[in-house]
């Protein structure tokens, strides 16, 4: 009875905390500018099914991709078992679904195999990260928290799966000893191997082990749930909406800024009154391009929370792989970290709070931005369809249009384009000279 109450309190507490953290993240994402991605719904659903659910972009790298699918499928399906654990916890019953008979044994057997597969996959992932030291996990942005985060997730999953299997082993031994309260369901295939470990253990100790592991398992899950919003692991939830709201236009296409279009149209309008008083500005004056996270769209902000720091983007980035400062993964991580900081400022000091910092320069340097070739290798590689390139371009737009800060060569290019319609200093009148040359 007492344990039921403790359990319910924990369950409610964990759910409440999780909901609160998710609400904060949604609020933060909504700090971004409007962007309409409500079109082409059926295309979006099938993209989501393919890329998020089907993980089509994960398997481009087969080893990591297949292991990831194992962990993912295991994680999802084993959650059915968690449903039983939760109901057991509330009702104080043990193995509530056992009356399903052979179906139950079959299900738990599948869960056990999956748990083993998840455990082994996570172990391989740990080895890849820490022993094989695969390069993309050890870039400069992958120190301190991001590094611990990845390892913590893997270790937690291993512990949770281990607890689940050992709990079943202890349970089986208790059944063998005919202990009261332990429903006879028989031996399961994976945990069955470990039953021998407990052959000399007394019923009292076994009950402590079994209950201990049960509580460890479920409290572990509650803790992990609340760890998600602070971790790259949040991608298991956000990957779905993030892929759904992907950019569907060709990768080469950049958006035409609406604010600029208005200005340019006015300049081209022969009927425009050159002496007209400018229209009263409505609301805050808009910036051209992005200086801080609030200048980005909600989708770019969602991208940043969805980023799982796998580094496939930076691994294929021509700038990054030739030693330049730019790393598309860092662009995503910086955006997220800055957004989290802005969010905390708002929580503490109200919605108009300005800490005097910005994404540009306090997080991302000009040198990083200037190294991008806009080749779209990063967006092609991202397994959750993030678009780091759009963030880079928006920050560049701020540098150029608000601060007129361009490398000298670019300033020359702009002048040439304006004056003679080409990035080089050739006269427009000579544009057809190639016709008569050889």
């Amino acid at each position, binding site marked *: 009875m007492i344990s039921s109450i403790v359990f319910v309190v924990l369950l409610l507490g964990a759910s409440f905390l999780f909901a609160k953290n998710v609400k904060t993240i949604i609020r933060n994402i909504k700090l971004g500018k409007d962007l309409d991605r409500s079109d082409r719904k059926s295309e979006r659903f099938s993209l989501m099914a393919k890329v998020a659910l089907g993980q089509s972009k994960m398997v481009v790298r087969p080893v990591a991709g297949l292991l990831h699918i194992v962990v993912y499928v295991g994680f999802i399906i084993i959650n059915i078992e968690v449903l039983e654990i939760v109901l057991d916890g509330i009702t104080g019953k043990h193995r509530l679904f056992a009356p399903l008979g052979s179906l139950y044994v079959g299900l738990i057997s599948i869960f056990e195999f999956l748990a083993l597969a998840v455990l082994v996959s996570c172990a391989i992932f740990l080895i890849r990260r820490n022993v094989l030291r695969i390069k993309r996990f050890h870039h400069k942005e992958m120190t301190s928290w991001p590094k611990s985060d990845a390892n913590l997730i893997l270790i937690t999953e291993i512990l949770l799966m281990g607890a689940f299997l050992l709990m079943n082993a202890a349970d089986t031994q208790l059944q063998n000893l005919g202990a009261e309260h332990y429903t006879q369901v028989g031996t399961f295939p994976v945990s069955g191997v470990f039953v021998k470990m407990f052959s000399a253990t007394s019923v009292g100790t076994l009950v402590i082990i079994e209950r201990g592991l049960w509580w460890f398992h479920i409290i572990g899950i509650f803790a992990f749930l609340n760890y998600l919003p602070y971790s790259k692991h949040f991608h298991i939830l956000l990957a779905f909406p993030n892929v759904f709201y992907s950019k569907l236009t060709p990768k080469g296409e950049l958006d035409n800024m609406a604010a600029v279009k208005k200005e340019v149209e006015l300049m081209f309008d022969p009927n425009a009154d050159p002496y007209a008083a400018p229209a009263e500005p409505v609301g805050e004056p808009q910036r051209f391009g992005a200086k801080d996270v609030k200048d980005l769209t909600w989708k770019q902000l969602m991208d940043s929370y969805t980023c799982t720091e796998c580094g496939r983007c930076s691994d294929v980035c*021509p700038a990054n792989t030739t030693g330049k400062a730019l790393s598309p993964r860092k662009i995503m991580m910086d955006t997220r970290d800055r957004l989290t900081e802005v969010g905390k400022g708002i929580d503490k000091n109200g919605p108009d709070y300005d800490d005097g910092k910005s994404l540009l320069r306090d997080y991302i340097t000009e040198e990083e931005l200037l190294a991008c070739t806009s080749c779209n290798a990063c967006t092609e590689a991202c397994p959750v369809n993030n678009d780091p390139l759009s963030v880079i371009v928006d920050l560049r737009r701020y540098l*150029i249009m608000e601060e007129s800060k361009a490398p000298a060569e670019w300033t020359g290019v702009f002048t040439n384009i304006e004056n003679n319609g080409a990035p080089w200093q050739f006269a427009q009148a000579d544009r057809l000279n190639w016709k008569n040359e050889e």
Partner: protein
Amino acid sequence: MSELKVPTMAELMASGQQPDVLFWVGCAGSFDDRAKKITRAFVKILNHVGVNFAVLGTEESCTGDPAKRAGNEFLFQMQAMGNIQVLNAYEIKKIVTTCPHCFNTLKNEYPELGGNYEVIHHSELIQQLINDGKLTVEGGVFKGKKITFHDPCYLGRGNNIYEAPRELIEKLDAELVEMKRCKSKGLCCGAGGAQMFKEAEKGNKEVNIERTEEALEIEPDIIATGCPFCMTMMTDGVKLKEKEQDVKVFDLAELIAKANDL
């Protein structure tokens, strides 16, 4: 060398004619010495087949692509609006271009600003001419040669055109060999995003050297590409590696023109 027939829109307009397709030459194709050869090669093909085309000539101006990628959206839209006025005044319906950057900008970014045209890359037009039986290609000088294709980002990843260039190379009876990173995984030459016009940021290697080394690894006779900027980067790379005697860099149009002895 026979004279090239390059009618301008102004000339056609004066005689009350309309071309089937406008050839957008682009800044590189107009002014860069190496790229001008690509332009001429492509025109030779158009003349050979008798395609009814025209160019804007001195009325053409930069599409604004490098300005936009550098972050100067204002300059880009000024260029775009100006070009659209010219194109719409001539009632242009279809555009072919030898530059993937012009191609991408005209095709994807101009419609929202009022410029709606069917835009194709020259590799697609040449492929169509072959498929329609208007142009026959025999390998000739390229028969049996090892040719690799370097995917321009704005043609490949940018607009999903991977096959037309490769089909052209296969038409040459050449051996098409792929680099380790090709098609959607192709490595950039280093020129995009307005990098062409400035020194690269500090690093430990130039992007074009990285790409050239990758190409040289498979020991091709020819590195083919479909972009004047990739052309510059790859040619420079091959020169720096002192391989210009063994490995040539050609545009697809040049390969087809040379194979046909044009």
